[in-house]
C-alpha cells in the first residue's frame, strides 16, 4: 500500500479492516473514545497509524504489517509511508510485496512524489497493481475526473513496465467502493476488496536454475562422526540427492549425499523457498557468500565489474572514491562506484545530465567495481539472485539489481 501524504492511504486501510470485519471487537469504539478524550476528530487512519507521533502528525512514519481477510485469500498489507523523506520505508514495504495498491487522490491529482511512488513499484520488481483513485467525494463523484486521473496513472505505470493494472474510484472516509459498491453508478468494476481478490498468485518460474547462497556450514554429529552440513535457502530451481553441484565463485564441486532437516525426514528433493542443509561427498567446507548451483544447469555470473540499476537512499551521495559493502545473496564484498552511467530522477524516470554522484532518493544506472569476484545472476535471467544492497558505513543505503557484467 503506497501513496503520497494526504492521499488518504491509511484511511483506506482502516476502512478496509473495518468493512471486511477484520478489526477486533471494541477497537473502533476504543479509538473513538481516545480521540474524544484527546479532543481531536476521529480518523479511520488511527486504526492503523498506531504510533503517537503518527497520530499527532496525521502521517504514516513506518511500514505497518496488517492482516486482512478477503473472500479468496488472506492478505498481509504492508502499509508504507508516503512522505518523500521516508522513501526508505516506502521501498522497504514495496520490496517485500507480491502486488501493489497505489492510492492517489482525485482532489490533489498526481504530484511529483506520487509519480515517484508509481515508478518505484516496477523498479522494485512488482508486476501487478491496483490504482485507487480516492477522495472521489471531493470531486462530486465525477466520472470525467476519474477517467482523466486513472489514464494518467496507467500511462505512467505502463511507461515503467507495469501493465497488469486495474483502477478503482472510491471515497475511503464514507466507505464508498471499499467493501460495498459506492454512489458511482457509472462505475461497474469491483470494489477495492474484490479487486484485491483479482490479483494472481505469482507462480515460481520452474525453468530457473538451482541457486542456494551458502548461509553457513554446521558441524552435525551423527553416529559418532561429525560432518559438515552446508545450510541455506533455495532461492530458485530445485536440488535432489545425488545431484552434482558447484559452488561459485570458487568453482569447487561435490555430490549431494543427503538433504538435512531436523528431525531427519528423508527429503529427496528441495524446492524454492526451502531452508535446508546439504551433506556432501567431499569434506571441504564452502564459505558463506558462495552460491551453490547445479553442475548441468546454467552457472551464475562471476565478475568483479558490473552494471547495476539502483535506488540510493543514503544521506550522503553515492560517490566515486568511497568504499561501500556490496551484499547479494549471502555475499559481502567491498565495492566502489566506478561511474554513473545515467541518473534517472526518481520522480520522472527520464535520463538526466552526466553526473559523478547519485543523490538521495534517486534511481541510477552505474558501474560498480567489487574488490573480489562475486556470484550473482542478471535481472533479466533470475531477478531474485540479481538483487543487491550497498552498505555505507553501517547502514544499508541503496538497493537494486545487477543488469550486466562489464568486461
Amino acid at each position: 500500500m503506497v501513496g503520497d501524504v494526504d492521499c488518504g492511504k491509511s484511511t483506506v486501510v482502516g476502512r478496509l479492516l473495518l468493512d471486511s470485519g477484520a478489526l477486533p471487537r471494541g477497537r473502533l469504539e476504543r479509538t473513538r473514545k481516545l480521540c474524544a478524550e484527546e479532543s481531536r476528530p476521529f480518523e479511520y487512519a488511527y486504526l492503523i497509524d498506531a504510533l503517537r507521533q503518527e497520530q499527532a502528525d496525521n502521517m504514516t512514519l513506518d511500514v505497518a504489517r496488517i492482516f486482512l481477510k478477503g473472500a479468496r485469500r488472506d492478505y498481509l498489507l504492508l502499509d508504507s509511508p508516503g512522505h518523500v523523506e521516508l522513501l526508505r520505508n516506502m521501498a522497504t514495504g514495496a520490496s517485500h510485496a507480491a502486488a501493489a495498491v497505489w492510492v492517489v487522490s482525485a482532489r490533489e491529482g498526481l504530484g511529483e512524489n506520487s509519480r515517484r511512488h508509481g515508478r518505484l513499484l516496477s523498479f522494485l520488481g512488482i508486476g501487478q497493481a491496483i490504482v485507487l483513485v480516492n477522495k472521489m467525494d471531493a470531486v462530486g463523484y465525477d466520472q470525467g475526473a476519474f477517467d482523466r486521473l486513472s489514464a494518467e496513472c496507467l500511462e505512467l505505470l505502463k511507461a515503467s513496465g507495469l501493465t497488469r493494472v486495474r483502477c478503482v474510484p472510491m471515497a475511503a472516509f464514507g466507505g464508498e467502493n471499499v467493501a460495498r459498491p459506492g454512489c458511482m453508478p457509472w462505475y461497474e468494476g469491483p470494489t477495492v476488496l474484490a479487486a484485491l481478490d483479482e490479483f494472481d498468485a505469482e507462480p515460481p518460474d520452474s525453468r530457473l536454475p538451482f541457486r542456494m547462497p551458502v548461509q553457513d556450514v554446521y558441524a552435525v554429529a551423527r553416529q559418532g562422526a561429525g560432518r559438515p552440513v552446508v545450510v541455506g535457502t533455495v532461492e530458485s530451481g530445485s536440488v535432489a540427492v545425488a545431484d552434482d553441484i558447484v559452488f561459485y565463485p570458487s568453482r569447487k564441486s561435490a555430490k549431494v549425499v543427503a538433504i538435512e532437516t531436523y528431525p531427519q525426514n528423508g527429503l529427496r528433493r528441495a524446492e524454492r523457498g526451502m531452508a535446508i542443509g546439504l551433506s556432501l561427498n567431499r569434506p571441504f567446507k564452502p564459505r558463506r557468500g558462495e552460491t551453490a548451483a547445479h553442475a548441468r544447469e546454467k552457472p551464475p555470473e562471476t565478475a568483479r565489474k558490473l552494471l547495476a540499476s539502483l535506488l540510493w537512499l543514503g544521506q550522503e551521495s553515492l560517490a566515486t572514491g568511497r568504499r561501500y559493502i556490496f551484499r547479494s545473496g549471502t555475499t559481502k564484498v567491498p565495492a566502489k562506484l566506478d561511474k554513473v552511467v545515467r541518473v534517472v530522477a526518481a520522480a520522472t524516470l527520464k535520463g538526466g545530465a552526466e553526473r559523478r554522484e547519485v543523490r538521495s532518493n534517486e534511481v541510477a544506472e552505474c558501474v560498480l567495481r567489487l574488490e573480489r569476484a562475486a556470484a550473482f545472476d542478471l535481472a533479466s535471467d533470475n531477478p531474485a539472485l540479481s538483487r543487491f544492497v550497498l552498505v555505507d558505513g553501517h547502514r544499508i543505503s541503496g538497493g537494486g539489481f545487477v543488469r550486466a557484467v562489464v568486461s
Partner: protein
Amino acid sequence: MTFLDRLENRSIHVLREAYAAFGRDLAMLWSMGKDSTALMWLARKAFLGRIPFPLVHIDTSFKIPDMIAYRDGTAREWGLDLIVGQNEAALAGCRTFPDGAVGRLACCRLLKSDALRDTLDGRGPRKRLDPRTGRLKPWRSGRAFHAVIAAIRADEEGSRSKERYFSPRSGEHFWDPAQQPPEFWNLYNVDFPAGTQVRVHPLLEWREADVWEYVDREKIPLVDLYYDRGDGLRYRSLGCAPCTTPIESASKTPAEIVAELKTGDLKDVAERSGRAQDDEDRGTLEGLRREGYM
C-alpha cells in the same frame, strides 16, 4: 509448500542469518509462552537439533508457578543453555505493582524492560542452568549479548506492527521507530556500529492462528495453562499472574484453539485483551516498547 511451510522456512532463514551475523553475541528470549516456544522449536530445526546460543528468561517472580515448572522441565529435556535474569533490586525494594508501590506500566518497565537490558548487558544478576545438577546457579560472567531474538508478531498490537526483521536499538535499548534503516528483500541489516543493540524478529509475519496451527502440526509441547483443564477457563496470552486473566473457553487442544480463533468465539477478540498493562498505554505498548520492552 503450504502457507505454514513458507512461514516456517522464512523464520529458519532469519534465524540462520542472525547466527551467522552475531554468533556469540546472540541470545534468544524465552517466556515459555506459545510464541517463544514455537520459535525455539524452529531454532532446533534451523540448527539441526542443538540451539547454539543461550535462551534467556526474564523472571519477574510473578509468573504463574506452572510456567516455571514447565521451563525447568523443558530446559532439561531439550538440553537448553538457559540463563535467567531478574531485577532483584526492584523486587527487594518492593517497587512492584503487586506490592502496591508502582502502577502496572512502571512495574513492567522495572521487572521486564530494565531487567532485560541488564541481563543482556551483564550489568544485572544472572543465573544459568547447570546441566549436571539441573539447577540454576549464579552466573558471574562479563559476557554481553548485543543481539537478541524475540518472538514478537506484527498482529499483536500497533507498535509491533511497525517492526523490522532486524531492528537496531540504542545502547540503552531505546527504539526509535521513525529512524529504522531500510530492509530490502531478504538482505537484512546486520552491520551496526559498536554499542548498538539488535532485536531479531523471525515470527514477525506469523499470526496467532498460524502459531497454533504450527503447534498442532508439530505437536509442540506447551504449558497446559493454554488449555481448558476442566474448569472452562484457559489463558490466551501468558504474562504475570497479577496482570493476566484467563478467558472462558472450553478448548482443550491446539486444534480446538485454531477453530475457536478462526470461526468461533474468539474470531474478533483481540489476543492481548487479557493483559491489563496494554490498556494503560492507550491500547498499545508503544511507550514501553520505545524504552526496550520486548
